[in-house]
């Protein structure tokens, strides 16, 4: 679910970045006061752990595999504010080292996977265990929280893409939500299995993070970010669903009312790719081809020039006086 750059427009990137910044700074301020120093290596190692855990393949079938997001897992093992900071660190490194997830889109990815995937999931989990006490129910709560946060994160992701004009909500929501409902099952299953594996060998780890209530200011900040984000990215589209349904109904002749003005296109309408023959598209395709050509042109020309000049150049080793890096 890591959104690369170029998919979101400025306003979406801006709003998500602002919400993420709000939540993260609230978490940081809280941790600055309350985080024991002893926990910092734990968070560093946990970030490394999460990074690696997200790389592990869980075969789904047909050659594809799913991966753990680990938001709810981290929050349960470390605490919500800690888990948010860890998740942000993981996203930063994934963005930089893997180019997995864009830089401008970082705010959106933090929102989806950190605020919704981690904080919301944890909130849901704590609410559920309060209602359903007992160890067996805790596993259920964990699974439900993991599933819900995955699906909701996908909804937000779709909403962000739709708000940016990249996709059309009504068309995208079915595949996106559908796929992530399945992925969510995997997330739920893995989260439960991992927590079970940990509690089998080191149960005290799970005890340690059930510290009492969170500081109210932090909760407010987290809650605001979640609610605002959902209000912007999910609610408007969810509320347009009835209109979309109406439009389809009208087209099919079930409703005699005026067809809504939304440009909702249902994939069921036929697989013709619209507008392929229009001149605008032709220009765009030509432009894209030209861009690709320019990359290779620059590359090969520079290589020719560089290799001509490199024959006399000695490889300088810059190890003389080590600066403080």
């Amino acid at each position, binding site marked *: 679910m890591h959104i*690369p750059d170029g998919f979101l427009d400025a306003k979406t990137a801006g709003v998500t970045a602002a919400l993420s910044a709000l939540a993260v700074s609230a978490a940081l301020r809280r941790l600055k006061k309350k985080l024991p120093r002893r926990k910092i290596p734990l968070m560093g190692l946990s970030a490394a*752990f999460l990074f690696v855990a997200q790389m592990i393949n*869980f075969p789904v079938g047909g050659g594809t595999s799913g991966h753990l997001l680990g938001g709810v897992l981290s929050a349960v093992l470390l605490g919500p504010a800690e888990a948010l900071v860890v998740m942000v*660190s993981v996203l930063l490194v994934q963005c930089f*080292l893997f180019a997995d997830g864009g830089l401008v889109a970082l705010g959106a990815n933090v929102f989806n996977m950190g605020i919704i995937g981690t904080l919301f999931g944890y909130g849901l989990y704590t609410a559920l265990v309060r209602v359903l006490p007992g160890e067996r129910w805790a596993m259920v709560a964990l699974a439900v929280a993991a599933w819900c946060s995955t699906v909701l994160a996908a909804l937000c992701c779709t909403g962000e893409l739709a708000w940016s004009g990249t996709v059309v909500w009504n068309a995208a929501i079915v595949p996106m939500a559908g796929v992530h409902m399945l992925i969510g099952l995997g997330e739920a299953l893995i989260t439960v299995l991992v927590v079970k594996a940990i509690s089998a060998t080191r149960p005290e780890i799970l005890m340690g993070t059930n510290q009492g209530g969170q500081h109210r200011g932090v909760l407010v900040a987290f809650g605001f970010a979640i609610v605002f984000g959902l209000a912007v990215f999910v609610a408007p589209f969810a509320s347009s669903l009835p209109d979309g349904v109406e439009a389809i109904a009208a087209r099919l002749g079930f409703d005699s009312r005026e067809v809504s003005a939304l*440009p909702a296109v249902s994939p069921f309408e036929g697989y013709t790719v619209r507008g392929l023959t229009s001149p605008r598209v032709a220009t765009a395709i030509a432009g894209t081809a030209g861009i690709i050509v320019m990359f290779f042109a*620059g590359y*090969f020309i*520079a290589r020719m020039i560089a290799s001509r000049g490199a024959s006399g150049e000695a490889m300088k080793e810059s190890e003389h006086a080590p600066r403080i*890096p």
Partner: protein
Amino acid sequence: MHHEYLDRYARSSSPVHRLRAIWKVVAAVAIIVLVVLSPVNWTALFMIVVCALGVIVALSKIPLRFVLTRLLFAEPFIIGVGLLTLFQPTGVLVFLKIAVKGNICVLTMVLLSNTTPFSSLLVVLQRMKVPHLFISILALMYRYIFLLVDQANRMRIARRSRTMRRGRLIAWRSGAGIVGQLFIRSMERAERVYVAMTARGWQ
């Protein structure tokens, strides 16, 4: 799971590598922001940017195949969303937009990460007043990722050598077991790292 390719060429030597990290970061961010904010029909701008990136790839002596392979990792999302966009009015234009912009930005990042050692990047972040907690976490994280990948691989091999039956559920239980063990070992190591840091006077 290989860790070698993560930033295999970050420590190579080339005119690009020798540039100071801060300039590379600024340039990368500028390119990405520029590309993201530019209207789609500014084709000439994209051509110039891409040509410049091609030049940089050549000068950095990073093998072209490596760069293209790294680009490939970003394609699934682009194609996935792309398929969705194609079935809308003006869908092809949107698809081209995300394909071009997405790939340019990924290329920029791949170049940045393979011409700049991670520690240099951390110094840049530090100078940008990123909170110290993040810097510590990122440094520790980077240091131990490779170790954990090795540990995970060893665990995977050990488990596979003891598993007679195949099957998805077995694979999932095994995977979950590895993840769980990995966390426990990471936690225990974190304790020892804390002691080692304290022993050397960590403030």
